[in-house]
């Protein structure tokens, strides 16, 4: 037999390799020419080893049993022995037939798999089922509006009158946080260290207080100033971060 020059197919095991040889030689599976097959099998193993393909122990064991069968078949049969001696190939043939069956089925499975791979399933949903009152989906748009209106009504009762209603009486006073930041920095220019309360001296207007406070927080956040306490519950002092 010629040296194998083609690419070796990957065999799934010794039985797979034997099936391959049987098909290639168009051999009758029930009448395997053991000598020929054994020779080819060994040649394959050699080639696999040369090509650094993994030759597992199972392949070697099969080689051994092929040689065993071969030797057994070479022995002359005793004519006088009446009982039919089993063909030494029988066990191998049984194994091959059994294996062939599943190899065929694996092809049928593959076809079905290819077909059903084209089917999509939806992921199970996590469903919300509030018991009582019924689910949120059952909350109607009316509920939403009612909720909103109840807020409006309550506000009209509890909150001070709408700002717009004062527009004609009082001009809305604009307070800029930016302006307050400048004022605080001016204070810190005159004095190295001030207390937090000093910032609010002479400030009674609510928006002004809020704006000043926001300015302080803003400056601290921007790391322009630094606030500290020498004891808990004590005065809060402010210095410029650069003076720290």
């Amino acid at each position, binding site marked *: 037999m010629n040296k194998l020059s083609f690419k070796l197919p990957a065999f799934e095991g010794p039985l797979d390799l034997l099936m391959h040889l049987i098909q290639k030689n168009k051999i009758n599976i029930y009448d395997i020419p053991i000598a020929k097959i054994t020779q080819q099998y060994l040649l394959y193993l050699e080639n696999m080893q040369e090509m650094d393909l993994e030759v597992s122990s199972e392949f070697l064991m099969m080689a051994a049993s092929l040689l065993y069968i071969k030797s057994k078949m070479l022995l002359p049969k005793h004519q006088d022995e009446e009982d039919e001696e089993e063909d030494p190939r029988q066990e191998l043939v049984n194994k091959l037939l059994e294996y062939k069956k599943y190899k065929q089925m694996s092809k049928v499975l593959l076809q079905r798999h290819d077909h059903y791979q084209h089917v999509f399933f939806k992921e199970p949903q996590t469903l919300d*089922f509030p018991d009582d009152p019924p689910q949120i989906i059952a*909350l109607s748009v009316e509920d939403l509006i009612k909720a909103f209106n*109840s807020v409006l009504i309550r506000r009209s009762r509890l909150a001070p009158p709408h700002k717009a209603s004062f527009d004609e009486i009082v001009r809305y006073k604009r307070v800029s946080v930016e302006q307050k930041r400048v004022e605080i920095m001016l204070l810190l220019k005159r004095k190295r260290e001030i207390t937090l309360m000093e910032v609010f001296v002479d400030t009674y207007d609510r928006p002004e207080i809020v704006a000043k406070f926001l300015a302080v927080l803003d400056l601290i956040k921007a790391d322009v100033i630094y606030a500290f306490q020498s004891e808990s519950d004590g005065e809060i002092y402010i210095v410029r971060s650069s003076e720290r």
Partner: protein
Amino acid sequence: MRIKEIEASIEGILFAAGEAVSLNALCEALEIDKITLKSIMKRLMDYYQFERRGIQIIEIEDAYQLCTRPEYYKYIKKLTRPKPSQYLSGAALETLAIIAYNQPVTRSNIEQIRGVNSDGSLNKLIERGLVEEKGRLDAPGKPILFGTTQSFLRCFGFKSIEDLPDIDNNQHNDQLKIQEKV
């Protein structure tokens, strides 16, 4: 492709996606133009409606999604393990209404309107996926802005925020009343 095939493909796509699929994505996948697709979607939605099937297609912000029809809720409910109660409190619902109609809003906007701290309700709504962050306001402290989610639209059956029923009339009346009072 025949219309029937397109319809069946849409059904398959929406089923497999399990979430809203945009009109554009559908057009691309089916290789048809928007106008044709829209009319086919209309036909398909009508079919579901007319046949009173167990599922329906809903439209959300130029996207489509398959879902069950509410009629069969009681049977569906029997079959799935109920999760802990998802009841929305009155406070949460109020907060939701405020966010829906004024979005995007900050925490303090909500507090101003409700007249009470609403962080608990807000967190609950975020947790429930009805409300989400929508960026930050360009103001001192950069407060977070909140708005409603696509899930909110789904839960209340709105196609888009524009679809919210008008309540401005009532509001004007209220303001009018306030002014009268003052």
